[in-house]
């Protein structure tokens, strides 16, 4: 089998001079597939995402995309390589309008971004109504939609989402998962962290359970769902 499109291999590292949060954690996703990371709070899921995106200095391990080693690229350069990331917290530009937030997502694009903006508005209709409003004045769920919309604006080849559905109402969440599937079908690699694990694993091609910075379980989404132990301890029964 060829190497997966995105791979973060044996990543070890932490914040500043503190202890290692990640301890040899490995994540990989094939092109056009969805990988979902679940795990208890503080397991290092967000840290792993940041590591893949180069926002953390790894002590060892590597990150590769399409076979190319990008371990030492800055986050900016990774954006240029077609990666997009929605962080878990502070993931919008609060004083800019919704529309400007989306435009910033497309900062590196030189083509016409109107159609993409329209697509995002179609996906999250509420944002169309609020396009002229400062994003910081939105409700929690609306912000989350802006954050995901911003990442989609990049038209990335790799999309990384850290708990995109936190605080989002069920109907929007369903829309969002639908859209994620669609995006994946268009050939985009998706890596996401989810606490709504059951819904997420349902659409996942691959699932990781992370515990204390290590891979505890790995399998297809269905396999993990089927595993009693995993269900009980991580997915809430």
């Amino acid at each position, binding site marked *: 089998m060829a190497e997966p499109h995105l791979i973060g291999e044996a990543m070890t590292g932490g914040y500043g001079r503190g202890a290692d949060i990640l301890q040899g954690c490995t994540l990989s996703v094939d092109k056009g597939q969805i990988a979902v990371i679940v795990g208890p709070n503080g397991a290092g899921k967000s840290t792993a995402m940041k590591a893949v995106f180069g*926002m953390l200095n790894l002590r060892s391990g590597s990150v590769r995309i399409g076979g190319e080693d990008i371990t030492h690229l800055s986050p900016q350069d990774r954006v240029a390589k077609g990666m997009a990331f929605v962080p878990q917290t502070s993931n919008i530009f609060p004083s800019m309008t919704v529309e400007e937030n989306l435009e910033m997502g497309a900062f590196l694009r030189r083509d016409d971004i109107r159609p993409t903006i329209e697509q995002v508005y179609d996906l999250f209709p509420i944002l169309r109504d609020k396009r002229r409003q400062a994003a910081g004045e939105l409700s929690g769920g609306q912000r989350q939609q802006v954050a995901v919309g911003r990442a989609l604006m990049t038209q990335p080849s790799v999309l990384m989402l850290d708990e995109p559905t936190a605080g989002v109402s069920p109907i929007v969440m369903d829309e969002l998962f639908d859209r994620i599937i669609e995006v994946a079908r268009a050939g985009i690699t998706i890596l996401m962290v989810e606490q709504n694990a059951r819904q997420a694993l349902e659409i996942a091609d691959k699932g990781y359970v992370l515990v204390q910075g290590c891979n505890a379980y790995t399998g297809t989404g269905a396999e993990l769902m089927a595993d009693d132990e995993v269900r009980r301890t991580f997915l809430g029964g």
Partner: protein
Amino acid sequence: MTDILNAIVALSNFVLIPGAAYGAQLALGALGVTLIYGILRFSNFAHGDTMAFGTMATILVTWGLQSMGVSFGFLPTALIALPVGIAITGLLLLGTDRAVYRFYRKQKAAPVVLVIVSIGVMFVMNGLVRFIIGVGDVNFADGARFVINARQFREMTGLDEGLAIRSTTLITLITAAIAVALLFWFLNKTRTGKSMRAFSDNEDLALLSGINPERVVAVTWLIIAALATTAGVLYGLDKSFKAFTYFQLLLPIFAAAIVGGLGNPLGAIAGGFVIAFSEVLVTYAWKKVLEYLLPENLEPSSLVQLLSTDYKFAVSFAILIIVLLFKPTGLFKGQSV
């Protein structure tokens, strides 16, 4: 009738026009302060001295031009030298950023640390300016000083009161208007401008959007250089250049930026005029105007002055505080760190 005209002319000559001139000068300075606050998120105490440095650079170039016999007709020669002055100041600011501010940015230091750091930079720049051009008064204005002066006006209209309009006043007003319009357009409509606002909002996320922070910072400093130098030169043309005065300008400039709402360019302009007019108006002695307007027997014997000029500075600050009490983030909604 002529009495009414005289009263109007006196009021314009001593209150409206000087207030507008000073207001525009403060506004230009406040634009710079507010921009740094808006994008780089700290109150830059070195701004007054940046203005002084820019002005000094321009003066040196002006002298060079004058010695070569270049002049700009009825406009001051300094305006030709201005672009060079801006360029030199830009280099200085970029250098300062590299040598000083960048470190704290990387550290994600608290804004107040940057404020203190900017005080350090202020000391150094201050020393630099005094060192190069000295501490004395430098007069570098040439060209025509007046569009119309008081005597000409009196002769022209036959009124008792004169009205003087200085060319620098006009230039300053026009420049301030253009600067704020440009800045507004730049920040709200251009890609680079928006990326600067994005950077100020959420630095990490800007990074994730592919915005190059160093570029944003560099562009900001260059704009600051242009604003500060222009403000400084126009002020210097109108009054004169002296390092100490430029340092003193900092306080009213900050007041203007804050009363208008920190981080808001329109606010900076409004704030400049509020501060300037409050200084002039509250301490104005209405005696003369009333003498024109009231019948002989009602004429005031006293000065009809609300407060003596001793308190002019206090008054402008009092107004500032009152504005803040009713609008806690300034006239135009400003940001707060």
